[in-house]
Structures are given as C-alpha cells and as structure tokens.
C-alpha cells in the first residue's frame, strides 16, 4: 500500500468481512454506474519524497528572490525564527477548531492572548479570534455597520483606502445588497467635506477609512468620528496594527470598529497568504461581532479556563438571516501574531516603527535630492510613501527588478491614472547599504 494508507491486504479482507461486503468496490454499489469514475485521473504519477523536493526546488528556482521596497498591503517585516518553529508544534498545527475545550486549552488560551493584544493595539474593548485577511475583515466590518443601522444600507468608503480592500468590500456589498459610495480624496487624504455631504442624506450606516492610507499617508481624522456619529453611522477604521504602537489608535480617533491585516506583525510575505485579519470593536457592539470569540471562564473545579463563547449569535441561531457566514478563524496565524507580539513587546514594536520611519524618510530625502522626485502629496507618512518622478516609471521599475530589487510599485497599478508615481516602502529590515544601492541605481537613470 501507500505510506499514508495503513491498510494491509489482510486488514482490508477482515474489515470487509465485518461489514459484510465482498470487495472495496462493493462499498460503492449504490452509486449509479453513470456517475462512477472508471477512468484514470489525468494527473502525474506518484512522486517519491525526494522527487517532490527536487520538483519544488526546481520550481523555486523559477521565482526570483528580491529585496523588497514594496508594500501596498504586504510588508516585508522581520519574522522571528521562534514563531515559525513554535507554530509547527503539532499540538498547535494539527488541532481542529477548539470544540472540545477540555483538550483545546492551548488554542483557546493563545486566542485569548491574541484578543488581548489586539485590544491593546487598537484600544478597543472587544476583539474576535481573527478573520481571513484584512480586506475580508473590512467587509465584515461593513456588514456589522449595516446590521447595526437596521434600515440603512449604504456605506461610505474613502478613496484613500487600499484598492485591494476596496475591491473586496465592493464585491461583498454588491451581493448582499449594500450600497457603496466613495468619499472623494483631496491631495491624498480623505475629504471631510465630501464625507459630510454624503452623510447628510441620512441613509448611511457606516464609513470606512484607513490608516495609513493607500499612499502611506498618516491621515488626520480630526472631526471624522463626530460627523459620522452625528449621522448615526459607525466609523470603521482599517489600520495597520504594526503602526499602532506609535500612531493614534482607532479608539483615539473615535472609531467604532477597527479592522485590518495582521500580516505586518511579523508574517512572511507568503505570496499573499495566509495572512490574518483582525476585527475589534467597542463593548456596545460586541454582540454584532462575527466569527469566533474566546472568553475566560472556570471549570467545575474552579480552575481558570477559556472557551469559545457568544456562539449563540445570528449565524448560529438565525442562520438564514446571518450577517456573516464565517465559521472558522485564521487561528494559526493569530498564534503567529501572538508569539510575535510577545517577543517584540512594548519596546520592540515601537523600535520597528522607529527604524522603518527613519529608513523611509532617509530614502525619501535621498530621492528628492536627485531632483527627479517629489512627494505626490505633502502629508506625513510612516514607512510607505508615494513619489512623482520625471523619470520613466516603467523603465525604472524594470531596471530595479533586473538588479534584484522590488519596488517602488508603479502607483498606476493601484490608482489608474497616476502614471508618473511610485510607491516605496521601507521596513526595519532594509539596511542603509540596500537603500544606498537603490538610490545609486536610480541616479544612473537620473
């Protein structure tokens, strides 16, 4: 037999005997002949383990390892060795959703820690056990707002929200029948006046903004929550959680829901996934929160323990009226975040931002010094920034790639029309030498 099938010939015979059928084939006797698959699959033949390794090594050689100056939703932050090694413990890796809490305290405890940490970062009181990714978490936040508003089903989204997030929000909205209106941007930031005008119709359930925004700009949301709340809508803020050790939190901005992607908390780029979404809200909106939630309790002996709780929400008891169909979380990636944040702690996460900030601003200044670059918008940024250039963007991008460097990303890939702009990102992993090399390659073109 095969290494994943423990059945010996004798086993099969004995087992068929107990079942009372004559052959393996007889086990499928009730299946109509018309639908039986009697051919061979058109698939490769079995590869032995060393052939599998060989195959993927060869495929891997067809990928290029690049020095990443790109962000746009995926950030090349440092991923500690401890994390990947601990999450590979089979007790974490091969467990199911913690339906049996007595033998799942490992999963339940780390999710409780995850919720606690996300609460600390966002300032929110209530956090769930994680979502698929940032974009879907934002879409779920939108549904929360609509559900909360009862009759109103329009949601405003700022044009400065990352287009990847925007696309998913729009897709979800379309099929659920939620109306999306976009808030205009002005000089790279959300236009408060445009938002107020859209709110004035009185039919808005929620407003989605982001921090930093799709240009890397740290927007000033002063006055936003007041305007949104005056219109009886909810303010949803998609925020990069890594930045929340230094930037004003969604809570401080007056947001009702914080959401976003935890990839920045030390996850590998993974060609886009798995990442992990987070979704946090106020105490008041707790019961609108979709997905799994872990709470503390005690067992019959009075021992502290953790358990999936608030399961009796709409997707379970009124599932036909569900606002969310999510029934799992991105648990192992939540563990990734939890261990990452435990390692980095109070001090480390600030240092990540300090170093990224310094590197990004150094690069930005060096680019501007060439005389061929200027900031697209004159607003503060942290680790990511958009610059206009008089150079040929496509040629530059290609040249950097040829030299093993990814980015800046041509801004037109994100915002059609922004033909002469690039979006650069610098994390704490980028060294002075790497930046200087990037700049000198660019200077060759300048």
């Amino acid at each position, binding site marked *: 037999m095969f290494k*994943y*099938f*423990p*059945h010996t010939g004798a086993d099969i015979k004995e087992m068929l005997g107990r*079942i*009372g*059928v004559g052959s393996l084939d007889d*086990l*499928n006797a009730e*299946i109509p002949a018309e*639908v039986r*698959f009697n051919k061979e*699959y*058109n698939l490769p033949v*079995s590869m032995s383990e060393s052939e599998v390794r060989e195959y*993927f090594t060869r495929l*891997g050689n*067809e990928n290029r390892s690049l020095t990443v100056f*790109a962000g746009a939703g*995926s950030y090349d932050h440092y991923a500690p060795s*401890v994390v990947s090694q*601990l999450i590979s*413990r089979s*007790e974490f890796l*091969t*467990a199911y*959703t913690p*339906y049996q809490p*007595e033998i799942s*305290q490992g*999963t339940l405890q780390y999710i409780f820690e995850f919720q606690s940490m996300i609460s600390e970062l966002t300032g929110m009181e209530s*956090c769930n056990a994680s979502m698929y*990714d940032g974009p879907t978490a934002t879409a779920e936040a939108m549904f929360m707002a609509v559900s909360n508003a009862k009759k109103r089903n329009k949601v405003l989204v700022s044009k400065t929200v990352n287009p990847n997030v925007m*696309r998913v929000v729009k897709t979800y909205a379309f*099929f659920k029948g939620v109306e999306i209106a976009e808030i205009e941007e002005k000089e790279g930031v959300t236009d408060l006046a445009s938002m107020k005008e859209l709110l004035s119709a009185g039919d808005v359930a929620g407003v989605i903004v982001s921090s930093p925004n799709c240009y890397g700009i*740290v927007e*000033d949301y002063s006055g936003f929550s007041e305007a949104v709340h005056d219109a009886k809508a909810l303010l949803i803020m998609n925020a990069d959680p890594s930045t929340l050790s230094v930037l004003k939190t969604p809570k401080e901005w007056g947001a009702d829901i914080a959401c976003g992607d935890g990839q920045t908390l030390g996850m590998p780029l*993974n*060609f*886009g996934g798995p990442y992990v979404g987070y979704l946090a809200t106020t105490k008041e909106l707790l019961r609108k929160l979709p997905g799994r939630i872990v*709470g503390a*309790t005690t*067992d*019959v002996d009075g021992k502290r*323990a953790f358990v999936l709780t608030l399961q009796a929400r709409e*997707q*379970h008891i009124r599932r036909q*009226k569900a606002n969310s169909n999510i*029934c799992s*979380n991105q*648990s192992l990636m939540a563990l990734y975040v939890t261990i990452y944040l*435990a390692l980095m*702690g109070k001090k480390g996460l600030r240092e*990540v931002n*300090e170093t990224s*900030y*310094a590197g990004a601003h150094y690069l930005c200044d060096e680019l501007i010094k060439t005389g061929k670059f200027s900031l697209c918008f004159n607003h503060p940024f942290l680790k990511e920034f958009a610059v206009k250039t008089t150079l040929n963007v496509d040629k530059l991008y290609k040249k950097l790639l040829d030299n093993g460097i*990814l980015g800046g990303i041509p801004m037109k890939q994100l915002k059609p029309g922004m033909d002469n702009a690039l979006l650069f990102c610098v994390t*704490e992993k980028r*060294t002075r030498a790497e930046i200087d090399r990037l700049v000198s390659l660019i200077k060759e073109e300048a």
Partner: protein
Amino acid sequence: YYDKLIFEISKEGRVGYTLPKPDFGKYSVNDLPEGLLRQDTPDLPEVSELDVVRHYTNVSNKNFGVETGFYPLGSCTMKYNPKINEEIAALPAFSALHPMQPAETAQGALKVYYELARSLAEISGLAEFTLNPFAGAHGELTGLMLMRQYHIKRGDMNRTRVIVPNSAHGTNPASAAVCGLEIVEVESTPEGTIDVEKLKPLLDETIAGIMMTNPNTLGIFEKEILEIASLVHACGGLLYYDGANLNPLLGVCRPGDMGFDIMHINLHKTFSTPHGGGGPGSGPVGVAAALTEFLPNPRVKKVEDRYVVETGDDAIGSVSGFFGNFAVMMRAYTYILSLGKENIRHVGSLATLNANYVKESLKQDYYLPIEGVCKHEFVFDGLADKSTGVTTLDVAKRLLDYGYHAPTIYFPLLFHQSIMIEPTETESKETLDEFIGVMKTVAREARENPDIVKSAPHSTPVRRLDETTAAKKPILRFKDL
C-alpha cells in the same frame, strides 16, 4: 498544570527580540505631528525569548492534535497532515515572494497555483478553479456569488432563492444569506436523502439553484443525484456542491459528472493540509465551463509556457486581497504529487471502508438510525440503551479521558443525540479497533456506572467548563480578567 498567561510573566524592561540598529541619522517617528501619535503605550508583554518559548511549549501541551491521537471528528476529515507538506510550504523560494512582484519573477509560484487548480478540476470533473477563497465557508460564499452572477449576467434577475436540504451543513444557509439569497429548505426522506418528490414543487423561476453535499451529512450517497440535477437544470437553476464531503469520492466519482455546476473544496480536509486550530484553511471553488468568466480576480492563466495574472471584467469581483492562502496550496499540491494518480484513486474507498468498519462494529452499542452502507462518515443517534440517562455530550467527554478527540456531536440536527464519526483513510485497523473498544467500554460504563460518564472528563487539563457565565459576562481580554 501550566496556567499562566503571557501577560502574567511580563516584567518591565525585559526583551525578547533583536532588531537591526538604524543607521539613518536624525529621523524619529516623534517628528510626526503630535496629533497623529498615540498617547499611551500599548500594554504588550515584556518577556525574554526563553520565556516565550517555554510559555508556548507548555501552552501547546494543553492541546490535542492529529499527531497526538485519533480524531474521529465527523465532517472534518482529520486525516494525517504529511510532514513533507510542511517542509515544502516553508521553502523560502516561495514564502519570501511578495504578492505584487511581477509574474515573470514568480513563475514557480504561479505554476503551483495553476497546476493545483488544474488538478482539482480533473479530480472534480469541473472546468476551472479559483484558489482565492480562504476557507470552506468562504468558498461557499464565493460559489454562491458565482451562481448569482451567472443569473444576473443572463438578465435573470429574479433568481434569488436557493434550495438547501434540512440536513445541510450550518454554513450553507448562512452563506446564502450573506450572498443575498433566500433559503428554501427541502425535506429528507426517512433514509436521510433529499426527497425528490418534495423537491419538485419548489423548482420555479425564482430558484437560483440548490446547495448539496454528496454523500450528504449523514454519510449517505444521494442516489437520485442525476434526477435532481436534471430537474434543477430544467428549471434554470444551478447545482452547488459543498466539498466538505469530497473525500469518499476520490477515485469513485466526480461532482462534475453528477451534474454539479459549482463546488468548493476544503484543502484542509480532502487534501491533507493541517487545520491549525481553526485555520488557515483554503476553499478553492470550481465551476463548469459556462461559469468560468465569472471567477473572481486575480486569476492565474497559462499563456504558452508562461503563467500570467489576469483580471476579468465579468468576474464577481475579488474575495481576497491577493491569491488566497498560497502556503496552504503548496501543501495540497505536495499531497497530490505525493499520491499521484495511482494512489489518489484509493482514498475514497479506504475512507469508506474505515467508516463502515467502525459503524458495523458499534451498532449494537449505539443507535444507528439509518442502516446500510455509508460513505466516509456516519451518524449514531446516541447510545443504543436509552435508559441510562447518559447523553451524547457525556459520551463525548468520556472519550477525552481515554485519549481520543470526541466525534462531532449534535450535528446533523436531524437526530437529537447525533454522534458523527469520520475516521478517514489514514487510520489503521488497530487504531479503529482500539477506538471501537473504548466506545464499547463507554457504553458499558453508561449502563454500569453512569456517573463516571456524566461527570467526565476527569483526566484532562481542565474539566467541564462554565460556558453560561462565559457568555453572560464575557471576558475577552486580559485587562478584563
């Protein structure tokens, strides 16, 4: 028993990280306008690296996984998660790729996506797959969006109702609702399959389609599937296949050949990727030829010998930021290549063999509501002896004492005391025999010493929990403890 939270071993000034020293001179994040800065400091732990390692090692030991022991969790296909899958998924040549790097610099990764999608199409008998959805439920939602898009693009705007059997997985109606569809339940026959006669009157021009799984949640094959398919198609609807139960069909039949138009697959079930305590999974969605133009963006295509990333105008839109859970796909594709066509064809029959063996071995002790050959899983309706007062919950908890994960309980809802068992094909006869022995022991205990069962578990890290208080006074973070 290790009972600390990471916050409880934190101490001011301790560190668990090293970061590169910045080398850029004068810049400081405090140069940002005061109004954009956080006023307080988030209360994250301060611990050493050893603290972290020892903490999460001890936390892990409070968990049960497939590698700890047998996990007969019905509907979850807790098969062995091969180690080579993990090794391959961790290859830096893939894990370090940025999702926005140009296709010409990620040909290896795009090939994995493309080839896995083609393999799934072959295995399911459908035309094309997207691998973007993140999980089974996410795949369902995506699949229903495709169903709606199909009708909308034909101008058939009134098809907003979807038929779901009353034995369906709980997510089916929820997914439909989130997709803006109204649910119509169709009843089951006493044998647990869809009652075709009851289905017929439901089929009209408002029906977008039907969601089914086959074998159904009772592990019973829907023999009349071809008739169902032709009825639904005749009324203009589409058939959605819930791939949660795909495992027994490998090598046996293909959803596409049964008339299904759309399906999702749980890579973390049939294709051996680990469940990770709840995720990340992956929920690829396949469609028949008529629906391929609606698949979500981005899409990976092959043009001559190169792989490209495309977006389509008729797509439902995007359901994910990028390409879905790529690292999970790496594992699934490794599994498919490891098995190859000559082994994949045995998966279904061996899974079915294991399920029937356990069922036949235990039907004296547990009440089997539906006789006959099952597929990969089956349902008992509690203990055969109904006089003991011992419930399905008690049986489940008692199994934990014996070193097993419990089966799925109280699902499907068709029975009051459902115990749903799915052994999967990777478990040996010896493991099944030991499990059967323990199930019989518990049945005997229920008769002879019911209190020990009712008060179980006794030997687990914690015992039964006060779930009521947890829900009534939710404490969701350390600060509120």
